[in-house]
């Protein structure tokens, strides 16, 4: 009897995560296209992007770096380093949220409100929705941190931290995309 070929397959949970990311991408792709379409129709308010967004971009990139550090530490079974790295990432993510909030304050100072010209409303929606997803990422980080404290994250059990790292890089990439998008279309 002939032997049928094995089919290609990946880790189903990681695959689920990727598809989840695809659907988030579609949300932001549609909102940024809506932004472009609306802008091209005119009646568009022009104002400066808050300074805070530069700082939050730096913070989010740093947090990506520390997340990667956590991942490498896990690969090398360096438990104490994983704890530190995940902890730092967690702290940076909270800093990020605070800086974003300050950014909203700077918008208000310029008389750009959520309710008003869509040019302003869009910024609140895009940053708010990103922050919402980042908050979901924070929950994930906390789960990883707890598993780390229970010695469940190590080189033989990488799935969770690997997924968290993927998601985290996605979140910071998403922010950088949004920031550049707003910068270029302002």
């Amino acid at each position, binding site marked *: 009897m002939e032997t049928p070929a094995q089919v290609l397959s*990946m880790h189903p949970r990681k695959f*689920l995560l990727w598809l989840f990311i695809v*659907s988030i991408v579609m*949300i932001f792709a549609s909102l940024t296209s809506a932004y472009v379409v609306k802008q091209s129709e005119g009646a568009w308010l022009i104002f400066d992007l808050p300074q805070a967004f530069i700082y939050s971009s730096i913070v989010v990139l740093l947090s990506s770096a520390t997340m990667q550090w956590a991942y490498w530490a896990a690969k090398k079974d360096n438990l104490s380093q994983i704890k530190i790295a995940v902890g730092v990432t967690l702290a940076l993510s909270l800093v990020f949220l605070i800086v974003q909030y300050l950014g909203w304050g700077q918008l208000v100072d310029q008389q750009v409100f959520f309710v008003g*010209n869509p040019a302003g409303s*869009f910024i609140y929606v895009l940053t708010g929705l990103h922050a919402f997803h980042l908050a979901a990422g924070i929950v994930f980080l906390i789960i990883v941190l707890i598993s780390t404290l229970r010695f469940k994250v190590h080189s033989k059990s990488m799935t969770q931290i690997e997924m968290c790292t993927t998601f985290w890089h996605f979140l910071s990439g998403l922010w950088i995309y949004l920031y550049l998008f707003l910068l270029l279309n302002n």
Partner: protein
Amino acid sequence: MSTTAVHTNEHIGHDDAHDHEHHELNFVEKYIFSTDHKTIAKQFLITGIIWALIGGGLSIIFRLQLGFPDMNLEWLRPILGKWITSTGQIDSEFYLALVTMHGTIMVFFVLTAGLSGTFSNFLIPLQIGARDMASGFLNMLSYWFFFVSGVVMFISFFIETGPASAGWTVYPPLSALPTAMQGSGLGMTLWLVAMVFFIVSSLLGGINYVTTVINLRTQGMSFFRLPLTIWAFFLTAVIGILSFPVLFSAALLLVFDRSFGTSFYLSDIYIGGEALPNVGGSPILYQHLFWFLGHPEVYIVILPALGITSEVIATNSRKPIFGYKAMILSLLGITILSFVVWAHHMFVSGLSPFLGSIFMFLTLIIAVPSAVKAFNYLTTLWRGNIIFTPAMLFSIGLVSFFISGGLTGIFLGNSAVDINLHDTYFVVAHFHLVMGSASFFGMMAGIYHWFPKMFGRMMNDKLGYIHFWLTFVGVYLVFFPLHYIGMAGFPRRYYSFTNFDAFQDFTDLNTFVSVAAIITFSAQFIFLFNFFYNIFRGRKAPANPWGSNTLEWTTPRVPGHGNWEGDIPKVYRWPYDYSKPGAPEDFIPQHIPLTETPESNLPHEVEQLKEEGIEVKAANAGKS
């Protein structure tokens, strides 16, 4: 996400008689919060059937208004209460609520959740040879989000101001200004809440289907050995993952406009002479976002039905499906093209005529893969040994509707023609044939065909035939006349036409359509009886009642948790080896190795064996 582990072999080894008593599962785990794909499929199916009855019932009520404008509907007061006016008529705003809810329920709850939810769930693991979905837990969540969505939508019928009334497409400003009409108030809010739950449900389902198809196929089940059902479900899920998030964006901005006072979709609006504060928005923006989902959505509705039809037609023609690869390519083509034609719903929205002609061009291209599918069905049927099971009749009915409704799509796709026909009953006729009826028939075909696997019993064929003929003739009698009414200029969603002289001539035709609709709707109760009675009392199903090749028929009569009792069967051939020359029987299931069928192997199959070092003589060498 930590419960998403793949189901392993934990349940194998149970024997058939015991598959009803999993001692580890109590009633709630087995029938309510079940993570078994077969149970979830049945939950989707039953919920879908209930919604279909509600949605169909609504349409009968508004057909009464259209067909018998002077009729006294006092007898409906026990159900509709204050929506019957003191003169015994349907309240005119409630009429709009009826058409809105009919559309929403049919498109989303019945033909999306009821169809994909049932058959993707039931057939994907069974036909690709998997023990369950990639994540049983997310799958269960998918059903319960759908359930909650339905509960919220249902509640909106019972509130003071009535359900949403802006049409199933809920265009702003009507939907964005809570004061615009009664249905734009709380009813619209509940509609949006329900839709958000629905989107989450669809995404959870779709993500799971795609992951399962890609990662959990059994040994030998390469992509080009997948039954066309699976290809269709797979691509439907891909379309859903890419388009439902866009509906989410559209709904989110609408929620902000309604409840927080933003102006994404609103500008320069006066109510009672007073200008609203909103400036800078555009209602057209909503149309773009909505139809970016809306058009792919119509293919989400039809592709699973086409997949089911491919399978049923090939099985019951006892012939390989004609042009298997062409079928896959046309599915792929439809998937891709469905994302670039959305503006054909917006030809009269003030779209630039240049853009309009680009979208017209792309729209007409999508007719090509659609036609390829229609021709392939016909050529599969051509000179087949056709066995007219009820499922087969419904599949042939689908092909008929898909052709007759698709043809009018080509008219509508031409912007110059569409400017006249847009928002008339012609459009209503088009999509009720090509989408509504075709997809409904696909669903029926699926139910009649896989009922034996779902419940282990047979449905009654005679009742099936009666159900088919009444419904098939009924659908044409209901929807065909609507073309003429539309060409005469009847706008859709109007409460009454009797005030217009131009439309007086059509009163009789409208009455005729309403009578046909009532008969067609009543015929569905034959099906309901056949379905529910035979779940309990039907004749026990044989192992492979239709002589089918796919893997689900290798499971026990009522498959237990984990689907197969021993190892999962391996797959050695494509699913369409029907009436293969030389073979003793007219079908060879997918799990039969080539080495066991030397008499019917084709030369390339002999070659394939040779490469593995197995020498079997080709019986057909030279014949093909």
